[in-house]
C-alpha cells in the first residue's frame, strides 16, 4: 500500500533564482519549486532568460531533486527582447518545466497561443487587482495568479474565493515595487570601480529616514523583508496553498535559512499548531538587513509590521545600520 500523502503535499513553498551559479550554490531542500530567471534585467549575470542551455540544465537539476521547475519572464518586456524569451520558453516547454510565470499580459496570450502545454502563472507586475481581472485571465487558461502586492488579505481572499484560480502569495522576502528601463547604478560604475553585472549584486540599498528600498539596478524592491511566518495559520485557514520566498536578490544562505524556517513553520501550521518559535524570528533576523514588514497584507503601508513574534526585530542588524 503506498504511503498516505503528507498533509504538506497540498502546499507548495517556492523561491526564485536568477542564474545557474546561484542555483548550484543554493541548498533548495526546503522548497517544492523554483522560479528560474531574473525578471528585471537582460544584463543580469548569466540570467537564465538569456541562456536556454542553462535553463535546460537547471530544469534537469531540479527534476533530479524531485522539484518543479518554473521559468519566469521579464517584468516589462519589450519587442526587442521577445526572441530570447521565446527561446527560453521553447526550452522550458521541451524540457518539462512545470509552468511559466508572466508579468506581461501580452505574454499571457503568447504563451497560450504558442506554448499551449505550458501552464501559465501570472505574476505581480501584471496588476491583477480584482476578481473581474482574474476572470479575464481564466479565459486564457491561466493556472495560478499572484495578485498585486498592494492588495490586503481580505481582497486576496475574495479573489481566491471568487476568481476560481489558485493564488500564490509572497510570505517572505523583499517585495518587488517597481521596474525600470534604465539602471542608475551604471552611473556609479567608474567611481565605484564595479562593473555591470556586479554592481547590482552588492546589496545596494536606498535609505531616507526610516524609509528603505533595495535597488537591483532596473528593479526596486522593498528594503525590509516581508515576513508572514506568524500569520501562516491564517493564510492556511483562508485556503492558500502556494507560498513564495522572494529571494531573487538574496544569497544562497538566505535562500536556505529562510526556506528551512518556513518549511518548519508550515509543517507546524498545517498540523494546527499556531505557535511561532522564537528561534524562527532569530533565524530570519540574521538574514534580514533592515528588519521586517508585512507588505500590504493588513491594509497598511507596505513597510509596516503587524505581529508579535519578530516585531522587536525591526532593525536586527546593528552592523548594517552603522555603515
Amino acid at each position, binding site marked *: 500500500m503506498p504511503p498516505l500523502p503528507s498533509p504538506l503535499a497540498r502546499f507548495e513553498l517556492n523561491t526564485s533564482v536568477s542564474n545557474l551559479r546561484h542555483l548550484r550554490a543554493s541548498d533548495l531542500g526546503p522548497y517544492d519549486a523554483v522560479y528560474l530567471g531574473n525578471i528585471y534585467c537582460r544584463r543580469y549575470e548569466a540570467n537564465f532568460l538569456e541562456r536556454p542551455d542553462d535553463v535546460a540544465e537547471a530544469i534537469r537539476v531540479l527534476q533530479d531533486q524531485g522539484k518543479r521547475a518554473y521559468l519566469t519572464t521579464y517584468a516589462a518586456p519589450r519587442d526587442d527582447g521577445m526572441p530570447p524569451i521565446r527561446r527560453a520558453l521553447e526550452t522550458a516547454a521541451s524540457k518539462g518545466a512545470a509552468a511559466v510565470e508572466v508579468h506581461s499580459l501580452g505574454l499571457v*496570450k503568447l504563451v497560450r497561443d504558442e506554448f499551449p502545454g505550458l501552464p501559465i502563472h501570472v505574476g505581480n507586475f501584471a496588476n491583477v487587482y480584482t476578481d473581474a481581472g482574474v476572470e479575464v485571465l481564466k479565459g486564457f487558461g491561466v493556472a495560478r495568479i499572484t495578485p498585486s502586492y498592494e492588495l490586503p488579505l481580505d481582497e486576496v481572499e475574495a479573489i481566491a474565493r471568487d476568481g476560481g484560480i489558485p493564488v500564490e502569495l509572497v510570505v517572505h522576502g523583499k517585495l518587488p515595487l517597481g521596474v525600470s528601463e534604465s539602471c542608475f547604478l551604471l552611473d556609479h560604475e567608474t567611481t565605484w570601480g564595479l562593473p555591470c553585472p556586479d554592481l547590482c549584486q552588492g546589496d545596494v540599498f536606498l535609505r531616507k529616514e526610516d524609509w528603505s528600498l533595495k535597488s537591483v539596478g532596473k528593479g526596486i524592491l522593498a528594503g525590509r523583508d516581508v515576513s508572514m511566518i506568524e500569520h501562516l495559520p491564517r493564510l492556511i485557514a483562508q485556503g492558500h496553498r502556494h507560498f513564495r520566498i522572494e529571494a531573487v536578490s538574496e544569497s544562497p544562505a538566505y535562500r536556505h535559512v529562510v526556506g528551512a524556517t518556513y518549511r518548519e513553520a508550515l509543517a507546524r501550521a498545517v498540523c494546527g499548531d499556531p505557535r511561532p518559535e522564537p528561534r524562527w524570528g532569530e533565524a530570519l533576523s540574521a538574514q534580514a538587513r533592515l528588519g521586517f514588514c508585512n507588505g500590504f497584507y493588513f491594509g497598511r503601508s507596505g513597510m509596516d509590521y503587524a505581529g508579535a513574534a519578530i516585531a522587536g526585530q525591526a532593525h536586527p542588524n546593528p552592523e548594517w545600520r552603522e555603515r
Partner: protein
Amino acid sequence: MILLAPAGSPRAVEAALEAGADAVYVGLQGWSRGGARGELGSEQLADAVRRAAGQGAEIQVALNTIPKPPERAALEAEIPRLVALGIRTLIVNDIGILVSLRRRFPQLSLTASVGCGAQTAADVAFFREIGADAVVLPGTVGPDQAAECTAAGGITVEVMLHMVEEFVLLGRCGMPSYVHLKPTAMPGALAAGMRQTGSMKRGGVGTCFRICQEPWELTDRHGHREQQFFPSRQLSRLGDVPAYLAAGVGALKLQGRSLPPESLRPLVARYRLALDEAGAGAPVPAWSELALPTSWTAVGR
C-alpha cells in the same frame, strides 16, 4: 490620426479645443486618479461635451482607478449617465473593468490606459482580444516598435508622445504605497468608497508622496555611499510625429491633466501644427521642445 489632449478643468478643456485637439480626455470626479490632476463634476462634463461637439471634437472620460469590487458596481452605475451625456469613449486601467464594461456597454469605445502597461505587439494583441478598441503605449515606444504594434490591426494604437518618463515604468510602480498608504474619501462619487491615496493604480496619484523626487542615500556592501535621485526626464517626441503617422498610430496623446490652460494651449497648438504638417507631407517645424513647468512632476502629472 487624431490629437488627444488632456484637461483637468473646464478652462483647460476650452484651451485644448481652441488649440486644435481632436479629442480631450478628462477625469470623472471620484473615478480617476485625481489629486493635482483635476477632475470634472457632472455639470462640468456636460458643458465640456457640448463645447466639444460644437467643434466636431470629442470628450473622452478617464476612469482610471481600480475600485474595489463593491465600488465597481457604483462605477458601472455611472456609465449610463455618461452615455446619456454623449460620452462615447472611456479610458480604463484594469482588464477586469474593461471586459465588464465591454459586455455591458457594447456601444462604447474602450481604451486601455497607459497605466495598463502595454508596450509590445503581444500586449496590443492581448488587449484587442479582450475587446479594447484602443490601447495607449508610452512615448518610450518608438515609431518602429509602434509600427509592429499597429501591424496586427483590429485595434487603435495610441502613443503618449509628450510625458514625463519616471524611473519606474507607468503601471509598474508600488513605491509610494510601500512608504505610505492612506485611504481617503472619494470626492463626489460614493460616500462609502475609499480612494487609496499613495497607490498609483488605485487612485490618489495626486498624493504619491514624491518618493521618486526625494534624494536617497545609496549604499552597498562595499561601503560606497552616494546621494541618489531617481532619474526622470520630460519626453517630447514632436519631431517624430511624421514617423508615428507613417507607423499607423491612431492617436497622439499628450500627458498633463494638471497643466494650467496657459501651459496646455501652446503645447496642444504645437502638436496640432506638427500633425497637420506631417499629414501634408511637410517637414515638422524645427521648434525647440516645449518644456513643461519644472514643478510638473509625477505629483502633478
